[in-house]
């Protein structure tokens, strides 16, 4: 390794300093928020029965962890979210490929897809429950219904945006339409698929929670709705915090996979 020049060192530290400030700021906000909340509840400035407090949430978390109810709630919500996410990914890809091969079909279906996509999907949930019964399968379908139509539309658009000259190249090399798909469209759209998946994981979580609000006996969504009905606000707030963590973790995993893929190009 050659020695790092003074100017480069200066540059690096000048880049690092703002990073450190940003990180400190983030932690500070969190600590202040928790301290203020706890303090206000302890001093009676806010009603801890309604607003709960960090210590009560933590205690609630521990006690529910002890009696083994919490893990199954988390597990079922995670399971439903992951399954509906995987199904959305696979189905959206398969349907979009089909639409790309049959121009007539895609033109015919386009208005329907647009309508279904602009529909507020939570409106569908009660109907799905009546049709499919109150089971985890229904909740998975609810999760899918939130993400799938938008995924198909946006994936189809990015398929269309691939340079037609690249397709022409495949034809000049003696390829068929099938080769345009496998050699150009699919590989060219992997980055687009990653960003779509990052959006979808959040949407599926929203769909699953909506489903659990209406039709579940288990899961974090159920805990939220039940907790609010019986005024167990500790449950509600703890579930929201857990949902935040779950969303962050799932998003982080996808981000990691994406970075790993992109690293191949360096």
């Amino acid at each position, binding site marked *: 390794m050659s020695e790092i020049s003074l100017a480069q060192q200066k540059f690096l530290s000048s880049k690092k300093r703002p990073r450190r400030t940003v990180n400190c700021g983030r932690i500070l906000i969190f600590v202040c928020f928790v301290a203020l909340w706890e303090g206000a509840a302890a001093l009676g400035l806010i009603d801890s029965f309604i607003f709960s407090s960090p210590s009560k949430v933590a205690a609630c978390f521990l006690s529910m962890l002890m009696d083994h109810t919490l893990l199954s709630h988390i597990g079922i919500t995670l399971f439903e979210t992951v399954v509906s996410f995987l199904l959305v990914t696979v189905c959206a890809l398969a349907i979009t490929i089909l639409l790309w091969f049959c121009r007539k079909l895609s033109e015919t279906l386009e208005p329907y897809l647009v309508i279904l996509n602009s529909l507020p999907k939570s409106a569908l949930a009660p109907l799905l429950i009546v049709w499919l019964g109150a089971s985890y399968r229904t909740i998975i379908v609810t999760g899918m219904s939130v993400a799938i139509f938008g995924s198909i539309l946006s994936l189809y658009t990015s398929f269309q945006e691939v*340079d037609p*000259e*690249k397709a*022409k*190249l*495949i*034809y*000049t*090399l*003696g*390829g068929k339409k099938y*080769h345009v798909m496998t*050699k*150009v469209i699919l*590989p*060219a759209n*992997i980055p687009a698929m990653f960003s779509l998946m990052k959006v979808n994981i959040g949407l599926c979580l929203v769909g699953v929670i909506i489903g659990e609000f209406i039709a579940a006996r288990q899961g974090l969504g159920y805990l939220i709705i039940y907790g609010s009905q019986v005024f167990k606000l500790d449950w509600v707030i703890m579930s929201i915090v857990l949902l935040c963590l779950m969303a962050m973790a799932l998003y982080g995993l996808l981000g990691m996979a994406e970075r790993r893929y992109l690293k191949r*190009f360096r």
Partner: protein
Amino acid sequence: MEEIMDEKLLELVSVGYAYHTMQGETPALQNINFTVYKGEFVAIVGPSGCGKSTLLSLLCGLLEPEHGSILLYGQKLYQKSAGNIGYMLQHDHLFEWRTIEQNVLLGPEIAGKLTPRRREAVEHMLKTYGLYKFKDARPSQLSGGMRQRAALVRTLALEPEILLLDEPFSALDYQTRLAVGDDIGSIIKKEHKTAILVTHDLSEAVSLGSRVIVLSARPGRIKNVINIKFPEYLTPLQRRNAPEFKDYFNQLWKEMNEHE
């Protein structure tokens, strides 16, 4: 040039083509007649939009002529014979998600002909044209000239007899353009290929071609054909300094700017 170029490779007989859209009909080419013999380097020049790219698409079977016919070895041309004809597009279109080696092997891969012999031939070409060191690199790591050479190797990987080149150097700056033009001209000569080059650049046409076909403005018709004769051993770059160069250039220039 060698005078024993008697084997007819491609023959165009009163070929015509028009594009049809809802807005109307655009006649692109009319009554094109010419013959390409083995080992020739034919340059085609003409004003923008006169149907040069259309002509190449017809020649490699991507489009079918509306009038007349195109014969390859005396047989009507179909898309299946595309293996005999390599088409190098204006832009290299190297895929960023493939390494240079994978890009160059795209043709054989699609044709299902990834034989060890083919791989070896391609590897040999990469070595000869100074790309072997970069075979595992991504296209974005290559200079414009190297990318163009990689695109040529990709076209040559299917071992076509005829090469169609659509303004292959127009994306390059002048300096690189001269160098790569010289390079690619020599490569084609060395591989004993027959080539048809489309270009805007008259000096490029004179420095590379053994015959220049001048097309008229749209719809493209053959306005004139000029035979180019230089001593055999001159490279494209040396041709530019030969005394005949200026005469050919001026002749073409007059031809292009003469309105009928």
